[in-house]
């Protein structure tokens, strides 16, 4: 057998990729193109027709509810990105770099993953008896005499949405960062230490730059999920916090397909900018 045929066989025939491409085109690309298209359709109270119009777009940018939802989404996204990073990085540092035993770091990672085996919606709901006026946090703080009045801003506010999202998504930061930290060659750190560098210098010059791809991957995960959120904000804010996702859900609920699509396009654009920005920092395919 010639070398060429062996090579062809080894790498597998390329038609194998076709079903995957077709599936993604049919059920991801075309649906998103469809959202863009429908955003220019004419919406009447009970119906929608494909006559092109900019009416829904104008309506979106003229209304404080809709533009407000856009800013709330961006604000909550940035805050949750920051909180998950602050919560996640030191944890990842411990798991990925400071724990010497392989078993312990695996155990810690498994502990982080276990909550994902509970339904997402139930994880969200579990925050209600935690944060409420008669919730666990208030009871504990009252018992410890740290506060004399129950804190009421904990539930059904933007704060509760942020707390809930931070808890649900922080593990997506920990995982990739711990993975990158675990790959750092310990000899580099030893060498730096032998040359007299303090921990701060080692951290900023070696550890942090080498963990950056993990941070970016984690940030992409968190961003994608937070930007598309609507369940957490709905359940923990008592419908007071409206994200773009919430707008889409309510608009579809009242059969306002055109408005839902406009919101969808805006969400897509925001998402695209965020992902593109992150991918400029790190080439995802290289890191695999």
């Amino acid at each position, binding site marked *: 057998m010639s070398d060429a045929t062996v090579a062809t066989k080894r790498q597998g025939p390329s038609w194998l990729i076709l079903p995957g491409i077709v599936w*993604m085109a049919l059920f991801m690309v075309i649906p998103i193109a469809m959202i863009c298209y429908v955003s220019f359709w004419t919406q009447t109270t009970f119906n929608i027709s494909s006559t092109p119009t900019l009416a829904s777009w104008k309506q979106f940018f003229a209304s404080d509810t809709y533009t407000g939802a856009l800013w709330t989404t961006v604000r909550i996204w940035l805050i949750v990105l920051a909180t998950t990073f602050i919560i996640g990085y030191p944890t990842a540092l411990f798991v990925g770099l400071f724990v010497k035993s392989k078993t312990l770091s695996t155990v810690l990672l498994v502990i982080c993953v276990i909550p994902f085996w509970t339904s*997402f919606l*139930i994880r969200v709901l579990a925050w209600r008896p935690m944060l409420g006026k008669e919730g666990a946090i208030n009871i504990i703080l009252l018992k410890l005499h740290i506060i004399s009045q129950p804190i009421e801003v904990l539930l059904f506010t933007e704060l509760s949405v942020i707390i809930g999202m931070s808890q649900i998504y922080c593990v997506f930061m920990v995982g990739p960062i711990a993975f990158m930290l675990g790959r750092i060659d310990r000899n580099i750190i030893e060498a730096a230490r032998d040359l007299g560098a303090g921990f701060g210098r080692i951290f900023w010059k070696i550890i942090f730059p080498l963990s950056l791809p993990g941070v970016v991957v984690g940030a992409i995960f968190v961003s994608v999920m937070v930007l598309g959120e609507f369940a957490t904000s709905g359940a923990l804010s008592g419908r007071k916090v409206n994200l773009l996702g919430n707008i889409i859900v309510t608009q579809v609920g009242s059969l306002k397909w055109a408005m839902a699509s406009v919101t969808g396009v805006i969400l897509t654009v925001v998402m695209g900018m965020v992902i593109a920005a992150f991918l400029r920092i790190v080439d995802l395919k290289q890191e695999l």
Partner: protein
Amino acid sequence: MESRVLKPILALYVAAFILFLYGPFIVLGILSFQQGPDGGPQFPITEWSTYWYQQIFGLTPPSRIAPLPVGEALIRSLILAFMTMVTSTVLGVMSAQAFRRKFRGSSFVFYLIVLGMMVPGVLTGLGTSLLANNVFGITRHWYTTAFATHVAYTFPFAFLVMLAILNRFDGSVEEAAWSLGVSPWKTFRKVTFPLIFPGVLSAMLFAFTLSLDEFPRSLFAAGGTEDQTLPLAIYGTFAVEIHPNIFAFGVLTTLFSFALLSVYGILMGMSVRRARKLAMQEDIA
């Protein structure tokens, strides 16, 4: 050295982190034993009981609180997760296999597939339901439109897992089979597949659990109430008022997930042991 100071501080931080991660579950677990049917989903516990667990299994007399509509929804979700698992694993193995050779536009295709796990469920769900509703005029069902969106979501995960496995795969064993005149399909079945099987198991596990818990895609792409999957049924209950039965159900599903994870662990252990045994036999021979 700094690790003497820093390490304990970080250890404490991680302990706090775990508490933060598990706090809600502890509270959820405690409240699931609330007295029923009058006890609410908050403290204090009026009386410890297993009422809400019994209610899920239909063992309690009817009361003003309707039991969770989970029975059929659970079965639908399991079937959907199974369908999704099989489809996306097959697609994932095929695509990753194709990626072993550089082809034109491979980088574009890579991002096309990976995008599936990045695009929020709200968007694919909305787009698919727009297509179904306004273009084709077909009814949405969990086993058609929702299934399609689920696969578009889980297939990228299966693909990445298989890509990582095949990247580290030693192709010389396949070459050996081909030079002995074994057909490519038979080589794949007898040589390649057993070797990548641990990866296939991980891909399956990913796809199954992601689909089982998938909510935004189903919300748009599955049909009406007679068509609900489990997450939709749960979502439906907290639109109105929550009762401790949802907490009890959360505890039960967590236990179920553990069972599933254990099965995965056992299968994984078995396949690793078998590989080791084969390697040993080779050494002897």
